[in-house]
């Protein structure tokens, strides 16, 4: 996603530079919410303050909103059609395969030590076996992360 935004906002148009886009993208990932929306809002703000932020936000949201409304409408009206359901089933299998492979890639990048593994396992058990609601699980994860890493991060910071 990042190269795409860089291309549109910094290269094809002289709105800002690549570094700014990438910095805001990184910041967007650290904030709650949808990364693409955050990025659009942040860059929009940088360019034109509040109105820019709103414009960026709307620009990000509208295409997806409109196209999905269209597609969802078609989906609902085609419900029950055996061929459509067959096609959807085939799609599901493909998407599942793609999800598995991209998650595997993500896993290799994200779990790099025993602590990471322990964290992932905790999330897994909490959600799958103890059946804690997902929103609470992630909240717990935020809390745990801070508990485990805050002191290290502070130490890293002051070492510079």
């Amino acid at each position, binding site marked *: 996603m990042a190269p795409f935004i860089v291309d549109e906002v910094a290269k094809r148009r002289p709105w800002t530079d690549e570094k700014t886009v990438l910095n805001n993208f990184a910041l967007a990932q650290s904030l709650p*919410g949808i990364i693409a929306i955050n990025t659009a809002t942040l860059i929009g703000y940088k360019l034109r303050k509040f109105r820019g*932020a709103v414009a960026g936000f709307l620009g990000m949201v509208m295409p*997806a909103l409109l196209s*999905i409304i269209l597609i969802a409408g078609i989906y609902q009206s085609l419900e029950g059609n055996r061929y459509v359901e067959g096609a959807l089933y*085939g799609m599901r299998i493909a998407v599942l395969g793609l999800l598995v492979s*991209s*998650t595997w890639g*993500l896993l290799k990048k994200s779990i790099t030590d025993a602590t990471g593994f322990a964290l992932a396992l905790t999330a897994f058990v909490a959600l799958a076996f103890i059946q804690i609601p997902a929103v609470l699980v992630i909240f717990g994860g935020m809390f745990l992360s801070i508990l485990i*890493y805050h002191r290290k*991060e502070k130490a890293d910071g002051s070492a510079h």
Partner: protein
Amino acid sequence: MDLLIKLFSEFFQLGIFSYGGGLVIMALLQDKTQQLGWLTATQFADIVSIAQSTPGPIAINLATFIGYIQRGIPGSVIATLGVSLPGFVISLITAKFMGHVDDKPLVKAMMRGLRAFVIGMIVVAIYNIGKVTLFDTQAYAVTNSLGDLIDIRVMALFLFITAMSLRYDKNPFVYIIPSAMLGMILWH
């Protein structure tokens, strides 16, 4: 009207806790839609596949779709606003008052842990999707025969696509479109 308010508040909650990308939001939504009885597991799997195949952030696609199923166009708008407003507001406040919070040790600590933590959540979500996609538990419950639980062709296609996409980095449609066509032919 009640449903609209509920849609908004549920998606708003999700918007606040969605950290770490679209797949996390998928995991959160799966849990939520099962919990509230808004969608069956199969419907959710369908919607995820469609949301993955259409342009736009998957979170928005999912919110719009689920909102639409619940309450038509008003529902889709409300759900989408719900899920995207928290990020918008927080980003705005951050941009205006706080600058680059991703430098703060507290934020870095949280991101560092969550990166690994959410993998566990995503795995659960994918497992749930896999369960309804790869296995026919209803037929199995009746006949108790392994042949009814597993369709070899489904398994083969799934394993093939997983292996191929692990190895080659191609546009997802290369896998999705042929699978859809196969699905129409084999599994209608």
